[in-house]
């Protein structure tokens, strides 16, 4: 394990337990904070570290915490474990192998924000991650780390595990809050942001698993040590998941600014079956696709990715080999977004369905040139016209696939069949 913040220990049958987490130095940061620090000092250190949200949007964590009014009588904390961005499988690694690291991070955040009730909103499908989290919470409660009067400090924080029930949109923070209130997961208009009016209209902070689980390390090693890793404008390490057509798919902890090409060709063992690279979706299915030629020289940080025309997103690198049919691959995504649009905003509800029906028509060999033109126009009608980012997320793949691989779409429409025999799997 050659990570710094997360992948620092060999995985065994017991490496997820409280005893082993403590042997690795776990909960020392919490104990120190409770005894020696003020909540404001904890918040300041997280802010100084430069830690940014790891769910995909990359907002400054310390700043998000700062938006909560200091005199608010009730503040809630929610950990977003609705990991569902296609290509992403990092949060479950933390829950399966180091659940106490998340719990300690939640407790430190709760201390900084004076939170009495914290929630772990976990996607309903998760099995082992859920059991590991519940088991870890049981251990932590029995050890006096969660609940009333934590470690005799006078501070109390309860953590409730709340299961979702199958909805991609609930990974959007305001949608998650509605879901946690027992409603349909409709995103809310912002402002007001959750830090002002969140769960049950009370100030609420929603943070991703990887974000919160980085906090204990920052508290132990200092803000400077964290800020020194990776690129200065988006520092730290990230859990990059590599999937698709690579020889060794998997999760790799690397500093931000790590070369994308090296991650694919060295860490993940290169392209499956010795084929050539065709394209990469670098940050989860919603981020714009890069053609092989765009990948050279790109590093895994926001500035380099923006220059290349995409985003780091959730750190989910989906690799596509030569010989893959990009038209059918895009249909996999349009079907997904049409399925997951919550139905609240017309441009997204109707637009995602239109895009999917057009793609289905093209794949069935019945597409027309006019269909292709409509498909190119639709993203511009959806993006920016919806309450949440799902509309944009659905639009960016469509726009970028056609931009980068337009010839394949034209061939499919003209000849009624795929340039690559419709191939997806090798």
């Amino acid at each position, binding site marked *: 394990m050659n990570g710094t913040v997360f992948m620092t220990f060999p995985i065994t049958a017991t490496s997820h337990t409280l005893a082993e987490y403590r042997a690795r130095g776990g909960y020392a940061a919490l104990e120190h904070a409770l005894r020696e620090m003020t909540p404001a000092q904890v918040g300041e250190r997280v802010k100084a570290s430069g830690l940014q949200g790891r769910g995909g949007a990359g907002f400054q964590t310390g700043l998000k915490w700062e938006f909560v009014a200091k005199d608010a009588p009730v503040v809630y904390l929610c950990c977003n474990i609705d990991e569902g*961005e296609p290509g992403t499988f990092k949060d479950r690694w933390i829950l399966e192998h180091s659940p106490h690291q998340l719990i300690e991070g939640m407790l430190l955040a709760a201390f900084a924000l004076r939170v009495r009730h914290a929630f772990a909103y976990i996607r309903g499908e998760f099995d082992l991650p859920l059991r590991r989290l519940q088991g870890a919470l049981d251990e932590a409660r029995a050890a006096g780390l969660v609940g009333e009067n934590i470690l005799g400090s006078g501070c109390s924080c309860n953590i409730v595990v709340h299961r979702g*029930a*199958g909805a991609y949109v609930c990974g959007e923070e305001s949608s998650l809050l509605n879901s946690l209130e027992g409603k349909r997961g409709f995103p809310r208009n912002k402002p007001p942001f959750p830090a002002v009016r969140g769960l049950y209209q009370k100030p609420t902070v929603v943070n991703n698993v990887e974000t919160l689980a980085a906090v204990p390390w920052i508290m132990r090693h200092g803000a400077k040590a964290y800020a020194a890793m990776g690129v200065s404008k988006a520092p730290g390490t990230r859990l990059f998941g590599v999937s698709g057509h690579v020889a060794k798919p998997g999760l790799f902890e690397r500093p931000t600014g790590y070369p994308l090409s090296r991650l694919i060709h060295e860490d993940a063992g290169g392209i499956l079956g010795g084929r050539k690279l065709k394209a990469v*979706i670098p940050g989860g299915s919603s981020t714009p696709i890069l053609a092989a030629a765009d990948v050279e020289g790109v590093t895994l940080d926001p500035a380099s990715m923006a220059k290349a025309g995409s985003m780091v997103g959730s750190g989910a690198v989906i690799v596509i080999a030569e010989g893959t049919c990009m038209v059918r691959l895009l249909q*996999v995504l349009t*079907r997904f977004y049409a399925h997951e649009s919550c139905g609240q905003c017309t441009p997204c509800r109707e637009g995602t369905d239109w895009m999917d029906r057009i793609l289905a028509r093209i794949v069935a060999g019945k597409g027309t040139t006019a269909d292709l033109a409509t498909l190119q126009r639709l993203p511009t009608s959806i993006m920016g016209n919806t309450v949440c980012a799902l509309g944009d997320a659905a639009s960016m793949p469509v726009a970028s696939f056609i931009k980068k691989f337009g010839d394949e779409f034209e061939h499919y429409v003209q000849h009624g069949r795929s340039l690559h025999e419709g191939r997806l*799997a090798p």
Partner: protein
Amino acid sequence: MSTVFAPALLAKFDALRRQYPPEMKTSLVLPLLHCVQDANGYVTEADAAAIADYIGMPPIQVVEALTWYTMFDREPQGRYVIKVCRNIACSLRGSEQVLDHLQQKLGIGVGETTPDGKFTLKTVECLASCGTAPAMQVNRTYHEQLDAAKLDRILESLA
């Protein structure tokens, strides 16, 4: 017809209610729907109304949640519900072949149940198993890095 829940199930409801601060009573909607589905295999509208009654909220709000979230089933399912991921990473690693193999083996299409009531076959969106694709879930259990031989072994192991 309104549902009357068994005492054992109501005890589980009470235990869940104790976890949440009292001012958050409507947060119980998803936990209680999960609880009924885990016990009965599916949730009816009458169940939803009874849950609303237990929480003390309008039934329509519970029915809304029941029908909006994809994990809740409103009719009986097979003893083993097989959910094959059809999203991007799994597609790139052979989820279409996985689905073909299962359809052939079980003799049913997606959304159908075998006549003996043993298997229901479904497709689902990303299960966060992209690094171990292709993947599927059988009831709660994840099965990953699937191929035809592994699928056969899994099916044989299900009594």
